[in-house]
């Protein structure tokens, strides 16, 4: 085989990978820009171009206190919405996977529709409801809206984990005289936990980043995305890019840490299965 032939062969095998990496580059381009701009001292309030290197934005991320207030508010809303949505969604997932009951398809439609409905429609319809019911809009109407659109994603995520679970483990526990509560507490819950955690993280990121639905139901309350939206007309403080970069890094570290833990867990399980590792004492 000639060299040219070989190169041609290699290209034929790998061009897809090359295109894929290029597309990944495209996906990361704006992230690089955000990170770069977080070190920028802009020449004017309305300038979006890189002007001068500085560390000031990272030293004083809260130089514009409105922005930090908005970030704190987004975290509060995200936290409350995540807890409520995760509890409601997990309960629903258990009912759907573990029980047979009448009206299942109706419930499935109710869970599916919010994921297929444009955010704009959900946002405006909630606005119409709150206005006609005379409910003043603010912090709690945002929480209500966020729980609503997060629940479905929690159900789908937890359900996937539950459905893939080996129910023989629970049967084995029952055969060994564990009570139902013990079985749930010691077997079921730990096995479903990764699904619940993933669902909670998804819910938090959906809530933290939501703009469209929030915009229609916030009244005068300002979340971080709404702050950015408003600032886009008045001039963006460079600290916005600091928050954007920090969010990216924190989330990436969380995901990578969970990936590493998962890999370690799998290895440990393999060792136990092979009879070489320290078997955990049954408690």
């Amino acid at each position, binding site marked *: 085989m000639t060299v040219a032939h070989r190169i041609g062969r290699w290209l034929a095998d790998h061009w897809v990978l090359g295109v894929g990496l290029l597309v990944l580059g495209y996906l990361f381009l704006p992230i690089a820009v955000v990170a770069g701009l977080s070190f920028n001292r802009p020449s004017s309030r309305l300038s979006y171009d890189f002007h001068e290197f500085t560390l000031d934005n990272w030293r004083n991320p809260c130089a514009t206190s409105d922005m930090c207030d908005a970030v704190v508010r987004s975290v509060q809303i995200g936290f409350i919405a995540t807890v409520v949505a995760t509890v409601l969604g997990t309960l629903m997932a258990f009912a759907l996977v573990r029980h*047979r009951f009448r009206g299942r398809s109706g419930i499935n439609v109710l869970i599916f529709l919010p994921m297929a409905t444009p955010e704009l429609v959900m946002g*405006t319809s909630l606005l*119409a409801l709150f206005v006609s019911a005379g409910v003043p809009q603010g912090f709690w109407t945002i929480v209500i809206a966020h729980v609503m659109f997060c629940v479905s994603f929690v159900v789908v995520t937890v359900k996937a984990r539950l459905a893939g679970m080996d129910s023989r483990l629970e049967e084995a526990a029952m055969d060994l005289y564990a009570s139902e509560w013990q079985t749930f507490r010691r077997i079921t819950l730990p096995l479903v936990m990764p699904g619940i955690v993933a669902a909670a993280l998804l819910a938090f990121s959906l809530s933290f980043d939501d703009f469209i639905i929030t915009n229609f139901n916030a009244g005068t309350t300002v979340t971080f995305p709404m702050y950015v939206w408003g600032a886009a007309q008045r001039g963006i403080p460079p600290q916005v890019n600091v928050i954007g970069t920090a969010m990216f890094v924190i989330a990436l570290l969380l995901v990578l840490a969970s990936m590493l833990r998962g890999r370690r867990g799998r290895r440990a399980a393999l060792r136990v299965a092979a009879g070489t590792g320290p078997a955990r004492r049954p408690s």
Partner: protein
Amino acid sequence: MTALAHVPTGSGQPAAPERAVRSGRYRFLPYLLLLPGAAWLFLFFAVPLFQLAAASLYDPSGSLSTGYALTWAFGNYPDALAAYWPQFTRSFRYAGIALVLALLMGYPLAYAIAQKAGRWKNLLLVCVIAPMFTSFLVRTLAWKTILSDNGWLVGLLRDVHLLASDGRLLATPVAVVLGLTYNFLPFLVLPLYASLERLDHRLLEAASDLYASPVRAFRRVTLPLSMPGLVAGTLLFFIPASGDYINAELLGTPNEYMIGNVIDSAFLVRLDYPQGAALSFLLMAAILAVVFVYLRRAGTEEVL
């Protein structure tokens, strides 16, 4: 994000453990588990839709301060459509063009990760989701920097004469379509990846053993087998893209406004609730119609 792919049809569920079915004390348990979540969705998702429907039929001469009367004013719909037809069609045109671009980029990416990445698969998958960790709005503003008149991209395009010496990217339809493509691309890639990952590589080898050209093998084997992911991804891309107004607002001008911008201003600036509600419903109906026709033609029952 593979939401659509997971949707069950009611059949095909694993049978509940016998125990739970037989014993009477479990009979009400599923309803108790479902009640809080279902009530929340009913109250804050289903009921508001009816309220929106009612608002779209209010007497258009009313206002927020004087109050609205429900007069079944069906005329609101043709009126709204006549007033904002350009924005309405533009939404679907932009979302459609963005979808084609996203498919051209997303399919190779999903295929590369699923079939060619080997042990780097999970890491690359994280890389697809990672850009979404930064706020949607912050990312879109970054495009404003990239596409700006003084930026390197415009400079480069002017130097190679792809752009006239006074040509711009920002504040043009190109910028808005590019922003839409970028922001919703991961929604397309993830379900596609899930389908392609299950693709058995031996099928492609068999095709090539039987003298199929790579193109033919792709058309007859890979593409049909990736159809469920393709359909789910297309919908997950198209639905939010056609209802988006952030890209049009930040990267475009009023000449690029989509129907979302009009609805936003109807509710929050002009306070014309009947018109805003009518446009919202028209958007939903149009999207549902597109989705329905598309699903009929794509013919994958696995998705819905």
